[in-house]
């Protein structure tokens, strides 16, 4: 899917009115099938950028075009159909704790299922093989029928990524997919994502904390800083000087891999008897 940002600016809906915008005058064109990484220090606007592209957040100024169309001009049903062709994987994997892994993975295919089919899939999973294939790309095939709340943080994050592999999306937007993974798993997860995008011809945009990993796996890298585009270059031209400037105030983040930000593990709350 072709993607174009024209001087797009956005702020978080919950932000104060006088807060600086999370994204500022950002312009870029991404061709179908292209793979790119978004890097930058914490709070640079990486998540906001992905949300704006995913039609999860409306750009306040400028515009975002998907396949030459402004999604916000579309009727609501059409917009929702378009969202079915995108896949946004949030940093915290959106998995209900009491759900089984197979159901959580197959939920990635909901836009293609009718309501009757999705109800039937709750009783008997519609594509067990497909879910198992997606999980085995992340070494999780043995967890197919486990419950999500029995998994570790890293396993949950990889289940969230496996959901992307069963979707029929033409544009994959993945937010910090590696924050809870050890280096070997992170490498494997990135390889699985890029291979899947290559095979299906999907466009892939990934935000990453780990700069060396981004440079190793992505032909094109975008550097964000305080909501503005610092550079948009082929990975070979991303010099240490540019990186140094990008992370001038946060040299620690450049040095190491992602800071250990274990995704929020919300334990299943105990069910209390309701007396309302």
């Amino acid at each position, binding site marked *: 899917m072709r993607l174009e940002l024209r001087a797009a600016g956005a702020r978080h809906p919950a932000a104060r009115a006088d807060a600086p915008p999370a994204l500022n005058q950002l312009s870029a064109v991404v061709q179908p099938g292209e793979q790119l990484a978004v890097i930058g220090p914490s709070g640079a606007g990486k998540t906001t950028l992905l949300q704006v592209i995913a*039609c999860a*957040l409306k750009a306040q100024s400028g515009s975002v075009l998907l396949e030459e169309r402004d999604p916000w001009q579309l009727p609501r049903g059409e917009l929702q159909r378009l969202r079915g*062709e995108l896949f946004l994987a949030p940093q915290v994997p959106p998995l*209900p704790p*009491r759900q089984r892994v197979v159901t959580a993975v197959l939920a990635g295919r909901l836009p293609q299922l009718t309501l009757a089919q999705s109800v039937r899939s709750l009783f008997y999973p519609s594509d067990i093989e497909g879910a198992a294939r997606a999980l085995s790309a992340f070494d999780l095939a043995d967890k197919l029928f486990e419950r999500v709340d029995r998994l570790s943080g890293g396993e949950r994050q990889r289940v969230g990524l496996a959901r992307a592999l069963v979707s029929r999306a033409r544009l994959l937007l993945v937010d910090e997919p590696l924050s809870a993974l050890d280096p070997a798993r992170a490498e494997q997860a990135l390889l699985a994502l890029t291979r899947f995008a290559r095979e299906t011809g999907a466009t892939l945009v990934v935000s990453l904390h780990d700069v060396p990993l981004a440079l190793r796996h992505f032909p094109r890298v975008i550097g964000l800083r305080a909501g503005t585009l610092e550079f948009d270059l082929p990975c070979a031209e991303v010099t240490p000087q540019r990186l140094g400037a990008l992370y001038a105030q946060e040299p620690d983040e450049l040095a190491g891999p992602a800071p250990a930000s274990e995704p929020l593990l919300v334990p299943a709350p105990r069910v209390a008897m309701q007396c*309302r």
Partner: protein
Amino acid sequence: MRDPAWPARVCACLAAAVVLAPLLVLAEFRPWVLLSPGSLEPTLRFLADFAVPRFDAEFLLLVARETWRTVAMATAGLTLALLAAVPLALLSVRTLSLSGLAGRMAAAPAVLRWAVRALLAVLRSVPELIWALVFVRVVGLGATAGVLAIALTYAGMLGKVYGEILESSESHAATALMRNGAGRLQAFLYGLLPANAAELTSYTVYRWECAIRSSAVLGFVGAGGLGQQIDASMKMFNGAEVSTMLLVFVALVTLSDRLSAWLRRMLG
């Protein structure tokens, strides 16, 4: 060293007493009347009747049939209530709004959600006893009036509380699904329901228990079931029969409690 919060607490207690004392007078709350010799003796005589429940076969058969009728009335009423409450609750949940995904909800869906909430409030603000009195006039004496009365009031209660349970739960999973193009009902089934199934079930069973109890009250206005029998026995000053039927209620409530605990364990 003194607790700085102490004077404020004393003031709050005094203020509460000053406000509540007139309420007690207004409500004619005079518990010592119970202990005056004039009312003590009839009370004790009435209670003494309760002491030995009536357990002969003929009466037990009658009680069994009326118990069955009461449970059937409560279950049918609750089922009808569910038919209305589930769609209304789903309509009222704000976290399942597609237009609300990116900032504010659009005007039309917001008005619709508000209207559904108002409808639920109307349904539950009329007590089931009033509905039953209305329906007894429309469909005549019998269980139908009780079923309809329970259905309407409980649709309002269930719809409101289902909506609240769904709205107060973690919506991240459902939001992510809708952002990826899933429909509202799909997001509910795959995002909200797994996290809330146990709580929704537990609340439904609790409401079933309440429906059994309120069908007893409805029996007093002629809606049939155990309540009507209790009413008849009370009028005959037959404490032994009332006592048997109250024991049946205790058993039913215990049963629903066990059922709810078991369901929660299965779904938790």
